[in-house]
């Protein structure tokens, strides 16, 4: 469903324009960002942007979303690869995802000032897309630990945790903090998995 873009294959000029677009969105939002703004920020011409992204702003925004998702998932893969055991895999994944979302300036601007743009793509039934994408991606990493049958639901469970604590911060839980996440995982998640594996 989601095609992972090979970030290396994207031309550097395309990446430069996309990064410029992200800086503009972080500053002014999606609605107010014009192709002129992006061209100025990327030090190129409008014609160049149209050549790279036929269709203009919509095409550029779609490419930006694709690239950001690809970056997110390749970082998540690196995090998973470094994990030594199930607990580290879950803790690392939650921290990486939470920090990526919280630290994404363009996303945070849009969530704060243009929620009507992003929420319809992720709420209620539309959340299926987010949950299935994340769980399809993470399940193979979880399967060796929890079994192939349970892996997708565990991935979905953890994705729910990231979303709830990111969208609505809790007093006692900081999903960007390792100690806090480790405690969350040990207290509420691992007991449910031990049960499931047996």
């Amino acid at each position, binding site marked *: 469903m989601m095609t992972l873009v090979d970030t290396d294959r994207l031309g550097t000029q395309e990446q430069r324009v996309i990064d410029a677009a992200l800086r503009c969105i972080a500053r002014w939002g999606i609605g107010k960002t014009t192709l002129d703004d992006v061209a100025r920020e990327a030090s190129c011409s409008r014609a160049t942007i149209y050549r790279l992204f036929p269709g203009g702003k919509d095409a550029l925004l779609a490419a930006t979303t694709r690239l950001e998702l690809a970056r997110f998932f390749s970082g998540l893969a690196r995090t998973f690869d470094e994990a030594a055991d199930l607990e580290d895999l879950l803790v690392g994944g939650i921290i990486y995802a939470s920090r990526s979302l919280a630290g994404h300036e363009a996303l945070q601007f849009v969530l704060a000032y243009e*929620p009507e743009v992003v929420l319809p793509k992720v709420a209620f*039934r539309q959340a299926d897309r987010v949950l299935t994408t994340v769980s399809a991606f993470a399940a193979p990493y979880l399967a060796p630990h929890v079994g192939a049958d349970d892996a997708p639901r565990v991935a979905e469970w953890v994705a729910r945790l990231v979303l709830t604590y990111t969208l609505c911060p809790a007093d*006692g839980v900081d999903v960007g903090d390792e100690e806090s996440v480790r405690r969350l995982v040990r207290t509420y998640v691992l007991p449910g998995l031990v049960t499931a594996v047996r």
Partner: protein
Amino acid sequence: MSVDLTVRERILEAGYTCVARYGLAKTTVEDVARASGLSRATLYRYFPGGRDQLLGDVIAWETGRFFGRLAEAVAGAPDFPSLLEEALLFAHRAVEEHEVLQKVLQTEPERVLPQLTVEIERILVFIRRFLVPYLEREDLRPGVEPEEAADYVARMLLSFIGNQGRWDLTDPAQVAELVRTELLAGVLAGDR
């Protein structure tokens, strides 16, 4: 029946009726005044912020009523796991069958979702307060506090009410399994 309603509630109920009929974008203060049988001046006295405040409060009011109905529906459950099972079954069905919610989600998601997101914090507080007394009566795993566990369980409930994901929340057996594992495995002590 409406004689028991406060003026504020009468306006909110009329606002809700208008949203059901015309949607969020097209409902005006004028419409709500007509539907409530009150003057525009009275409406502005109760909702000085006008249309935006009124519609925001209508959404908050109906959200409150929704979770009030949910709390009422599960209050008689024999034990805590059953209570959560009933809550998931009831709430999932209630969201699916909520005609006004489904209609605005379909036609005006960009208007209703930002408002509902604002409500999340309040809803979490409501569910948490509802759960704490039950958790205080349960035998909890070592190191688990009722307040903190209530927050965790409230978040999971809300997440599943919004989207069932891989689970079928119309199937009592699946709901029982979900409650036993993802909601309570870390919370309750003993032989599950």
